[in-house]
């Protein structure tokens, strides 16, 4: 028997496979497709203080080996989330991580405050790809000091694990990860979507209403792996790896690069049971390679050379 359990600080998971925010709705949508309790964890859609209608269409567009989206953080708002969505989530035997969106530090804090009295929440994941309304739309985690400050403010109001979900759209993501840790984050999730754009050459309009959009899917996997590896080398904080995971082999790459846990995003749209396939595949790999625990894989990359050879 392979030990598949995974740890993020004090949070123990039965296996290292979660579904990613915004790619699994509120989980009930897939409940009749497979046994959700097999997952290591479920991350909810981003929840904001008030309900958000989201962006006008078009919201999604397929590109080579990936997709663009700008949903506009459509969600029911924290109160309706607690009333209508949390009861089902709470009934599951897997870890529920509530992902939180905010335009200001205060909004993050207030959503957490709303959720603090509710049971059945294993951790909070803070969506730091949200545009910071005070900084001209810069994503929160594009600035290390903002990242640290917001994290510290949330840290003050909760004893639950806090996971900072970082944007990849930065010069050095390890600087941001360090700031999140210094602010009190228990872990970082990497990566949220890359900024991307596609254009309809007939109409000369962007393919997505908002213009620039979030890029996800297999196409971003190499970038995500590089970011995970960078943080794993530079910062002493557990990492949740995300980006283009469609198969167990993809997931294994993330573990080897340094992620303790991984999340499945876009793949859920193609096959919502991807997580189950990935769990089984990791187990099979460990058995075949005589690894008693999949945690042994974490950060086990063997570089060919020490230094960064110039490209």
């Amino acid at each position, binding site marked *: 028997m392979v030990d598949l359990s995974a740890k993020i600080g004090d949070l123990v998971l039965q296996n290292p496979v979660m579904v990613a925010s915004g790619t699994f709705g509120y989980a009930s949508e897939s409940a009749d*497709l497979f046994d959700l309790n097999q997952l290591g964890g479920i991350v909810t859609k981003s929840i904001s203080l008030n309900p958000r209608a989201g962006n006008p269409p078009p*919201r999604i567009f397929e590109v080579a080996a990936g997709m663009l989206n700008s*949903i506009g953080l459509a969600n029911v708002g924290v109160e309706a989330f607690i009333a209508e969505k949390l009861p089902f989530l709470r009934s599951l035997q897997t870890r529920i991580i509530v992902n939180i969106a905010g335009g200001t530090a205060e909004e993050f804090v207030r959503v957490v405050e709303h959720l603090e009295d509710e049971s059945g929440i294993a951790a909070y994941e803070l969506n730091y790809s949200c545009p910071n309304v005070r900084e001209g739309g810069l994503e929160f985690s594009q600035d290390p000091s903002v990242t640290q400050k917001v994290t510290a403010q949330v840290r003050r109001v909760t004893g639950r694990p806090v996971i900072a979900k970082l944007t990849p759209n930065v010069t050095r993501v390890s600087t941001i990860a360090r700031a999140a840790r210094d602010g009190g984050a228990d872990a970082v999730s990497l990566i949220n979507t890359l900024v991307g754009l596609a254009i309809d050459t007939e109409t000369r309009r962007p393919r997505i209403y908002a213009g620039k959009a979030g890029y996800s899917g297999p196409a971003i996997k190499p970038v995500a792996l590089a970011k995970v590896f960078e943080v794993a080398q530079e910062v002493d904080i557990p990492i949740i790896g995300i980006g283009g995971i469609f198969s167990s082999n993809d997931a294994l790459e993330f573990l080897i690069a340094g992620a303790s846990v991984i999340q499945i995003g876009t793949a859920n*749209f193609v096959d919502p*049971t991807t997580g189950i396939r990935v769990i089984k595949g990791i187990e099979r790999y460990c058995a075949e390679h005589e690894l008693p625990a999949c945690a042994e894989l974490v950060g086990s990359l063997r570089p060919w050379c020490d230094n960064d050879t110039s490209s």
Partner: protein
Amino acid sequence: MQKSNEASPAGSRGIFDCRVLSITHFSNQIYSLRLSCPDIAQKAEPGQFVNLKVNQDLFPILRRPFSISQVNQSDGWIEVVWKIVGVGTELMSRLRTGQVVSVLGPLGNGFTIDPDAENAVLVAGGLGVAPFPYLFERLVAMHRRVRVFLGARTGSELVLTQGFSRGNADVELATEDGSVGFRGLVTGPLVTFLDKTEHLDSVQLFACGPTPFLNAMCEIAKKYQVKCQISLETTMACGFGICVGCPVRTADNGKRFMLTCVDGPVFEAGKVALHG
């Protein structure tokens, strides 16, 4: 056919690996596919759709949604009809008997047949005809009087016309180039029909086709004060509510959205604001 995910409860929608029973080439770019899929055949309602993964590769990566065109519960198959418009539909046209396709479904809310509507009127623009054979069969089984108006740009794009000859149905054809039937838009013959129909409250329209056509249908439904259901198409990633990528504006103030995949694809005309 094999349910690829064994964990999912029997009888519900699911993800199925379905064998191609046959593929038919109607005209230039239009095809139909019969898939062995007893579970979906059992459960599907007219107007629902399936989301197909037409390859095993990462390109194209997303599933492609198609209306369930016809169903045979005893033989356990469903049919879809499509036109080649891009890479996914092109790949589908290369499928061969015996190959396996991953089918997610049945999805969405189908047509709601009004209990009081004696006269069902099916109106299709182009491949909007896709969901009608199954809807037609259901209506005939319910002993409704059915009229079918099928329009297309040209005769070779008028497909499935044979499927409506059972029961006491009337079929009227229209083509923009006049190559078959009425020359002009299909709404022409429809309006003529409505003009001469007395009990409009016994009529229910069912419309499927491109957005400008659906807009025209909503106008007509409003003008004649007649019940009308429309089936929409939007880009979709998942098809069952988890990507939130398929919004359609509500008619009330146009600031709220519904999701085409789970709130539709069939909507009551006047409940949604198409285009803007």
